[in-house]
Structure formats: C-alpha cells, structure tokens
C-alpha cells in the first residue's frame, strides 16, 4: 500500500512512515491470527461444538459435593455434613408419554419401595390412580367405551375423563391390587409430577442403603432417574455460636436472586445452595468445593449409553476457628446466669434485657468468645442473641477514658504528669459537670484513670477544642473540629470504625450529630457516641498490645479436605495476625495508660469487686447514664449502662475482654459486669490449664 523505497535526504522524515508501516504489518498479523483461530473454532471444530451442546445441554451432569467442615481451635467438629440419599427423576425435553412413565415406574419398583408402611401406601393410591392404570393396561378396551358422537364432540381431555368415568368397579377387580403394584402406582404418581428437565425428588426419607445401591447400579436402564446424595449441615453444638456460623440456602431457594449474575458467572446453577449469612457466606468460596462433572454420552434417542467423569469432584475446604467452643459454651452459660441474677435485683427496673461479652487474644486478634443473651419480657425466656456483640451499639461510659487520655497526649492537650483539679466544670448557667464524687485538687492522668475522673477528661477535651474556660462564663473560641479530631484518634483504637472481623456485616455504632461543647465533654467520657462490644474489645486489645490495632478474626486456618473421614488435610492458609494500624504515639505514653488501667484493679474503681482475685487483670470500668423518656419527651426512668473492659495478665496479655450490660436500674446495683468478668477470666484460665494437663 505504501511506497517506501525512496531515499530521503533527511532520515527523520523517513522513519515515521517506516514505523507506521511496521505497525500496519503487525496489525495485519494480529487480525489474520483472529481469522485463522475463528476458522478453527467455527469451521473445523464447529460441528463438534454443536454436538456437545446437543449432548450435554439436556443431561444432568453435575453432582453436588459436601461443603467444607468447620472445626474449633481444639479441632472439635463444630459444623459437619450429613448425607441425605435421594432418588430423582429428570424428564426429557417436552416430557415423556404416560406409557413410558409407567414402564419406568415398573422398572424402578423392582429396586425401591417408596412407601414402606402398607396402610399408608393403600391410602396414597385412590380410585382414580387405579382407573388410570387400568386405562394404560387396557387401552383398546378403554377407547371402545367412547361412542362416535363422543369422539366428535368432546375434547381429548374430556374424552379421557369420560373413559375413566365409565370404567366399572367390576373391571377394576380384574386386577389384583397387591403391594408391589401399589408401589408401582405410587412411583408413577411421583414421576407424573416432574417438570421437563428439572430434577424431581421421588423418594429421600426412609430409603435404605441397599435400595440406594440397587438403583445406583441400574441407572443405565433407568433413563432420567438419578441416585444423588444431598448434604445437610449438622451443627454439633446446637445453637451455640449459631448466628456467626450462619446458614445456607436450600435447593428450592437456590442462589440469591438479587446477585444472580455474580453467582451464575462463577459457575453456580439456580438451584445451588450457597452461604446466606455469617461464616458460611463470608467463606463461601472456600467452603463450596468443586462439583463433580459427569459427561453422559447419549444416542440420538436420548438413552444414556455411557458416562465419564470430566472433572473430579472435591469436597469444600475446611475452616478452623480461633474459638474454643468449650469456652464459648461456658461464657454463654455465665452470661445467662449472671443476667438472671441481675434480673432479680434492683438492676431490673423494667428495662434490663441484654448482657454482651466479647473476648479476644489482644496480640493475634483471635476471637475467643462472642456471647450475648437477651431476656424476652413477653415470653419470659432467655435466649442466645450472640450476634448483638457486633450489631448492637451502646454508650459505654468511662471505659473510653483510656482513649481520651491518649488523644490528649497526641494532640498535645496534656503530657505525662499533667495535673488538673477535679473541681466541677461550670459553663455559664448550665448544670455543673462533675465526677461521681470530688476526687481531689490535683490529679495526674494516671490518677484520673484509676479513680475515673470525669472532670479530668472534660478539661482534656476542652484543651483539645482550644476553648478558654472560665468558671461560670460561656466558653470562648470553642472549635467544632474537636469532634472530628477526637473521633479520628478514637478510631485508631477501633472505636466508631469497622473492626475488620471476617464476617459479611458488622455495625460501627452511631455518632451523635449535635456539635456543641457539652456533647464534646460527654464524648470524652463515653456518653455520646455508641460502640459495639467488639469495638470495645478491639480498643482494649490495642492498649494491651502496646498500640497495635489487630484485626479480630474467627478463622484461624483453612485446610484442604482430608482424605479419610474425620482426618484433617494439610494447612492451605494460615490467618496471621493483621495489624490495621499502630496508634501514632510513643510507647511511654501507652505505658502510662496501661499503668492507669492496672491501678483501676489494684486501687481504683474495680478494686473492691476484684480484691482477692486469683489472676492479675488491668482494665477500666464504665457507667453511662441512659435516662428513659416517654413519647412526649418526659423522663420516666433512670437507667445505666454498665461496662467493663480489660486484659490479663498485665504483662504480655493473652486475653482481652469487653462487657456491656445496658439499661440497669440505679441504686444498690448487683455488679453484674464485674461478676461476668471474674467468671469468664477464671474459666479462661481453667480451660487453659486443663488443656495443658491433657
């Protein structure tokens, strides 16, 4: 196309056309490649493709494989599979004739008795079924029952009905209706109900292993019949941890319709069972396994003459949880018992209903237990609502003060050893804001944590906001950005943001929306924004772990399916601790907060409840006021959210926990949060000791 031969004085002039021509030749090469490959696909292999479509489109070709199992950290099976055997029938395109169905039923009846109870079988078969059978067996006689007029005037359906009506009792008695025959009729009734090309279950419950094996062996003679094994999930610990394990759809429900494109593109069929919630959904790709693919060779009439496994099926991979189910069960029990005790005390002034606990390993992020129990006032029952640990958010009260102090350090509002008086804060004519009692004229930040001083936190928050505070006067220069600053620092501990747990959904709590100074002070003492129990556990873990915020996770390992029953396969992937962020502060600052948290238990607000406790624990208590209002906004009751966070042992901690018991009545309360705390920590060490001894 382009002449290139001419010599040019300027080399530069020439090189552009030359290179464009090279490009053109390259394009030509690529396009030729396309045409050649299309020729191969469409002309040389085209016929084969068409045959493949004819062959495979209409024959059932995939067998389900069991999903992966779930084990706890001690390798006890948490979620298992149970095989359910069944015989199905898939009619060919456009269905099959009644005569053929009867033949099939007779053949199948040699191997299976679909209703074992004789009486039940007799009830199942009514007179019409018998008449239809007589019709099929004596078609000629039956058609003689129609007059010429009938044939002219009636539709085919009406003719059939008329014939059935005219079959007499007498005629029916010519056939001996023994059990074998009734079985044939019962099978045929099931076959009649199947739709073209979609498998219909003929029998599943009550089928014996022998019957199943018989049918499997004779599949080639039974066209359209298949012996399949379906898998049901079996929860070995009953309802314990149920909401986190999640569920799968049944085969009628199939894949979620709203996301069907995604599933279909990944090779699922409409009836496939998929994880709908919890870990089953989160780890669907790992648990699902690979379906066995069988290619049936059929002759032109559609009879199966052979089969070949194209893709070997493989059971889904197994998950090993970070959880110890024994601990989880024990914590569930403790939470329920303690909630019951609280219900019978002043804590119950008509609102108490929940107790929530999260436990994790602060260094690795391994979740150890997630437990929540709810009391239903109407049914008067206690039930496992453990999902609330990640769904429900509450104001935790003073437990957040560690984060407030660290935010103070980080923003430069306070430094190590900064002292404030605990004298109540008085802004203009607002009610004074004070600590639960006057704690002294000079508190350091460690004292403030130990004794849980509100005023110290208020003053820190005011400094962060840059406001000038003069007792009894309005604040000057209050900067609204302080909300953003504090929340940003709080989020470094996981407060108000996703913890990153390996579940399809988690709540992040609610942020208050009114940026006035009073609310900033409340934010500093945990009375404004709400957090989930898991967020609090991550927060205390971050402090316990010297400022490294690790992602909590429920799955410790993924393993290949084992070859033998109940044997684990090799480790495919190990979930290593994932650090989400490091709190941007020197160790010495975090050490101060850790010291404060330690003193809470040795000399501060938790001392009396924990004195004489066997193991050393550090942490923080919290009480948030949660007044109840009626519809018109009048306060009708006082309640308090009781919370406790902590970790143990103080040096090199291995367990961190967060406890919230919302909406307790006020007064001489039962210290339900402390009681739960002591019992779960004791339980943790007890189980640990047992395991080491074993």
């Amino acid at each position, binding site marked *: 196309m382009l002449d290139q031969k001419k010599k040019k004085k300027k080399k530069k002039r020439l090189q552009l056309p030359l290179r464009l021509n090279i490009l053109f030749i390259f394009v030509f090469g690529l396009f030729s490649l396309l045409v050649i490959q299309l020729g191969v*696909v469409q002309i040389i292999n085209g016929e084969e493709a*068409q045959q493949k479509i004819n062959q495979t489109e209409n024959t059932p070709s995939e067998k389900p494989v069991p999903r992966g199992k779930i084990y706890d950290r001690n390798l006890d099976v948490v979620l298992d599979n149970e095989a359910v055997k069944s015989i199905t029938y898939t009619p060919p395109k456009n269905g099959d004739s009644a005569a053929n169905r009867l033949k099939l039923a007779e053949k199948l009846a040699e191997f299976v008795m679909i209703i074992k109870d004789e009486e039940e079988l007799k009830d199942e078969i009514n007179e019409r079924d018998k008449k239809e059978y007589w019709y099929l067996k004596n078609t000629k006689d039956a058609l003689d029952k129609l007059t010429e007029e009938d044939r002219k005037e009636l539709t085919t359906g009406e003719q059939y009905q008329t014939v059935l009506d005219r079959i007499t009792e007498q005629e029916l008695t010519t056939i001996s209706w023994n059990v074998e025959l009734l079985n044939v009729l019962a099978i045929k009734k099931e076959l009649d109900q199947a739709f073209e090309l979609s498998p219909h279950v003929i029998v599943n419950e009550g089928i014996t292993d022998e019957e199943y094996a018989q049918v499997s062996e004779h599949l080639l003679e039974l066209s359209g019949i298949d012996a399949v094994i379906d898998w049901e999930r079996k929860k070995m610990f009953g309802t314990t941890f149920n909401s986190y394990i999640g569920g799968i759809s049944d085969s009628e429900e199939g894949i979620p319709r709203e996301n069907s494109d995604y599933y279909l593109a990944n090779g699922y069929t409409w009836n496939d069972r998929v994880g709908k919630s919890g870990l089953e959904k989160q780890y669907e790709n790992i648990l699902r396994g690979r379906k066995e693919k069988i290619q049936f060779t059929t002759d032109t009439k559609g009879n199966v003459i052979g089969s070949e496994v194209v893709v070997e099926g493989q059971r889904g991979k197994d998950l090993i949880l970070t959880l110890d189910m024994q601990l989880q069960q024990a914590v569930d029990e403790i939470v329920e018992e303690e909630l019951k005790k609280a219900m019978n005390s002043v804590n119950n002034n008509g609102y108490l209903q929940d107790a929530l606990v999260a436990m994790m390993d602060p260094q690795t992020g391994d979740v150890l237990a997630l437990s929540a129990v709810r009391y239903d006032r109407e049914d008067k029952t206690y039930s496992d609502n453990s999902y609330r640990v990640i769904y429900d958010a509450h104001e935790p009260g003073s437990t957040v003060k560690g984060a407030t102090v660290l935010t103070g350090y980080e923003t430069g509002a306070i430094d190590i050893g900064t002292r404030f008086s605990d004298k109540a804060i008085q802004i203009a004519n607002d009610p004074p804001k004070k600590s639960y009692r006057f704690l002294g004229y000079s508190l350091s930040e460690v004292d403030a944590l130990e004794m849980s001083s509100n005023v110290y936190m208020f003053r820190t928050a005011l400094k962060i906001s840059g406001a000038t505070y003069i007792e009894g006067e309005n604040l000057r220069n209050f900067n609204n950005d302080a909300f953003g600053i504090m929340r940003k620092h709080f989020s470094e501990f996981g407060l108000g943001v996703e913890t990153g747990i390996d579940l399809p959904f988690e709540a992040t709590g609610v942020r208050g929306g009114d940026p006035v100074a009073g609310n900033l002070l409340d934010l500093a003492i945990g009375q404004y924004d709400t957090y989930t129990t898991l967020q609090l556990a991550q927060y205390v873990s971050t402090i316990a772990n010297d400022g490294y915020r690790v992602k909590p996770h429920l799955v410790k390992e993924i393993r290949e399916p084992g070859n033998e029953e109940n044997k684990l396969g090799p480790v495919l992937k190990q979930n290593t601790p994932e650090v989400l962020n490091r709190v941007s502060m020197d160790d010495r600052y975090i050490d101060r907060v850790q010291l404060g948290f330690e003193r809470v238990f040795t000399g501060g607000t938790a001392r009396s409840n924990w004195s004489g406790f066997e193991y050393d624990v550090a942490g923080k208590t919290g009480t948030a006021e949660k007044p109840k209002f009626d519809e018109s906004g009048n306060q009708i009751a006082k309640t308090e959210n009781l919370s406790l966070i902590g970790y143990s042992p103080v040096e090199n901690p291995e367990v961190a926990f967060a406890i919230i018991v919302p909406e307790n009545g006020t007064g001489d309360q039962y210290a339900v949060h402390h009681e739960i705390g002591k019992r779960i920590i004791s339980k943790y060490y007890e189980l640990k000791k047992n395991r080491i001894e074993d």
Partner: protein
Amino acid sequence: MSQKNTNPTIDYTLILIIITLAIISIFTLFTLDPYLKQSYSQTFYIQQLVWYIGGSILIVFIMLVDYDRLRQISWLLYGVGMVMLILLFFHLPPGIAIKVNGAWGWFSFPVIGTLQPAEFMKIFLIVFLAHLIVAHNEKYPDHTIKLDLWLLTKIAVFSLPPIFFIGNQPDLGGVLVLTAITACLILISGIKWRIIFSLVLMAILGVIMVVFLYISFPEQVDTFVEATGFDHVESRFQGWLSTEEFGQSGGYQLIRAMLAIGSGQLNGKGIGQVEIAQTIPHYHTDMIFTAIAESFGFFGTSFVITIYFLLIYRLIHIALQSNDPFGSYIVTGIVGMFTFQVFQNIGMSIKLLPITGLPLPFISYGGSSTLTYLIAIGIVLNIHYRTKTYMFESDK
C-alpha cells in the same frame, strides 16, 4: 516548494466504515432485544442509537476547532482524567463513585447516568503523550541514546499513574489498553531501535519468568497473588489455560463462549438465534461477539473483522498523510487503542487470550465507551480535514 491545496476534505471512507459498525451494533442489539427484555427493562438498541446520535453531534463540534488546540489543553485533559481516577481510587464522592461487577470504575450521576472515567482516560492519554513526544522532538531534534532514554522516562512517568489507578479498580482490560497505546506511541516516537528491542526483550523475559515461577512454585505464587490482591487476574489465567478444571470459576465464560461461537459454524444459526450466547453474562456488552458469531457464523465474524481491518487501514493511511507529527501521533495512539481492543475482545472469546473486561469498539453496548470511540473518530476526522496536501510534493 509547493502550492498549498486550500480545500480541506472530509474523509467519507472513514465515516462510511463507522456507519457500517453502527448498523452492526444496533442491529445485533435489536435481535438480542427479546432475550434482554427478560432481565432488563431498558431497550438497548434504542439507547445505543441515542449514544451514536449524541456522539455524531460531538464530532461536529470537534470538527469546528483546529485539533492543534488540543496541544494547549492536553495538560488539562490529562489532569481532569487523573483527578477522576484518583477520586475513584478513594471511592469518592460517596454515593457517586460506584462498584460494578467488583470494580470501582464508575461514577453514577443522577439523571445523566453512569460514566466510566477509564474510557475517557484512553483519549486523554493519547493526546497528552502525543503532545509530550512532539514537544520533546521539537526541543531535541536529534536522537541520541541519552535523549531517547530521557523521552522514555517522561513517557513512563505520565503513563504509569493512570495505569496504576485503573489496575487498582481493578480493571485489567483498561490497564492493557493503556499499555498498548503507550507501546504504539513509543514505537513511532522515533526512539532508537536498539532501545525498543531491549524493551521488547525485557517484556518477553518478564513473561517467561512469571510462567516459570507459576509452573515451579504454584503454591507460593498463589499466596503471593492473594496477598497482593491480584487473585482475579490469576483466576482468569487459570480459566484460560485449563478451561475444564476451572470450569466453575474463571473458565466458565470461556467454555460457554467457545460453544456459542463454534456452534455458529460456517453460516450461523440465523438472525437472533443465540441459544448459547444468551446464557453468557454480558452478552450485550463485552461478550457481544459471541452473539454475532452464533447467529451469523464464520461469514459474519470474518465480515466484522474485515470492517475493523478497513478501519485500521484507513486510520494508518490518515496518519501517513498527515504532515504534522502531532496529528500522526494521535492517530497512531488511536490505532493502538482500537487494534488492541478488537484483538483482545475477540481473542478472549476464542481462547487466544485470557478473559478481561473490554468492550468491542463501536459494537458492544455502552455509553462511555461508544462516546469515547466517536470522540476519537472526531479527532481523526479533524486531523484529516486540516492536513495540508501539496500539489507538487518533492517528497513523493
């Protein structure tokens, strides 16, 4: 040296080729309409027609201004493109940046509809790199190794960021197109052959190394790609290399596509007969070629490829005729874009290449893509329109 021909000309051949492609597109979507109606409420062929009309109006506007002005705004275009990609990277603005089929690649505006910045970035990058190369060559008319490497560095500095951001969405197809565009422009930028050859050699060695690693240490590679978030790329490759075994994940689309295309055979099954193609996801957008192949067979597919070939032929012709390097470079970039997309899109459905999400230019349904390609054609028409031809060319 010559007398200027003052009559600018419109390239009717190119226009005719585009009209043919438009007819193929709208007609195919029309035949697919009964199937599409089962899952969508839109009427795609009408909408595609609207995009074509809108694009044609855009072309008229583009023709009004001398394309040389593009040099002045090339920085601006590049900047706008990058800002959009960066916004998408941070999933901003919330509610407007949206995730479709697993990739953060779209803005969704109320009323106007959705917009895919990666498509527009293709044109912006072409114009920008063309400008960059011209500016370099004007400043340094000589090609020494040192100057060439300097030019290469500049090209890399400006083409890698958009490639990174699009790769992060993740949109493998977009990455490959931008790479193809950049490669074409490097080829014709005048950079010395020995540098180009060493680049090609390095690329080949790189590919060989990846393949070698995958064959020798499959598990480590597995963990690595998972850790770096490239697992979807891996699954596409697995689907391509061992189609049957990975039939459930990456290979599924490919098996269906091969069946659909193959069963079209020589003559096709007839207009609107797409029993297999309609079961392939995206059969009206990225996988539309399978529908054409199934209904019209080998005759249909080779006709489509011929039309594309004519298009490329015409574009290269215009690039050769233009005596302004800036114009030639832009057209070459556009050649790179079209060639690669056509080759990749068709190649992936017949197992020449792994599957990636890329539209078939002018034929696949899609607003952003169709508009982008029409804008590209508008620029080419503009370049041809303003090419000065000489009556007594000493060069020829």
